[in-house]
């Protein structure tokens, strides 16, 4: 039996809603919930890190902290929810086109709760451009600018013949 969303506001998404809208799954589904959402504009995501995360034993056994690529994935998975929450894009796969101006400001360790604020600058013809910034207890942790493609949309615009 399909379970219903546990969030009460239409402007927020729980993990079941996120799974419905985006294609990332364990072990690379890296946003737990969306607490604020303005479709086509912005999203605020939450990711809680516990010592049980699969990467902590390897990064590093004597000093566990969240790898940079995981932080970037958390940012972009919040970012893509700004448009994957819309009916016309829901459930589509996305690909990175570029990641620019990445900044890592602090280590993220077991017990930290990442708050990710993402905004969509433009979405045109299957290319989404925007940025995201994460914080832990109000202190900036990581930020980046993204260009993300929606291959299913791009397919409509590719030349018929080479």
């Amino acid at each position, binding site marked *: 039996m399909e379970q219903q969303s546990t969030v009460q506001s239409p402007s927020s998404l729980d993990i079941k809603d996120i799974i419905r809208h985006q294609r990332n799954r364990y072990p690379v589904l890296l946003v737990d919930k969306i607490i604020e959402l303005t479709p086509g504009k912005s999203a605020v995501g939450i990711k809680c890190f516990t010592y049980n995360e699969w990467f902590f034993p390897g990064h590093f056994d004597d000093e566990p902290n969240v790898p940079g690529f995981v932080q970037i994935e958390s940012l972009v998975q919040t970012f893509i929810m700004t448009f994957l929450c819309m009916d016309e894009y829901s459930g589509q796969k996305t*690909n990175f*086109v570029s990641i620019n101006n990445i900044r890592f400001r602090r280590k993220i360790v077991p017990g930290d709760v990442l708050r990710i604020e993402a905004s969509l600058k433009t979405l*045109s*013809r*299957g*290319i989404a451009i925007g940025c995201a910034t994460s914080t832990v207890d109000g202190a900036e942790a990581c930020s980046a600018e993204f260009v993300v*493609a929606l*291959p299913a949309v*791009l*397919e*409509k*615009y*590719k*030349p*018929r*013949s*080479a």
Partner: protein
Amino acid sequence: MDNYSKYVTAYVETFAVSADDAPGLRYQSIPAWDSVGHMALIAALEGVFSVELDIDDIIDFSSFERGKEILSKYAVVV
């Protein structure tokens, strides 16, 4: 910079090719000109020439040479 130079520069910057190689390019003739690269090129050209291409023209934009013909429809003489 004249329009031809702007046109070539869009290919150079989008696909990381030399200016000498740009004129012979066709869609999928190099790995960089795939479906993502195609939209990046269109976006670059729209920005450089301040035009907005129709979907039929985007689909028809299959080569360096064909692109010049298409841009002429938008009063951009390359």
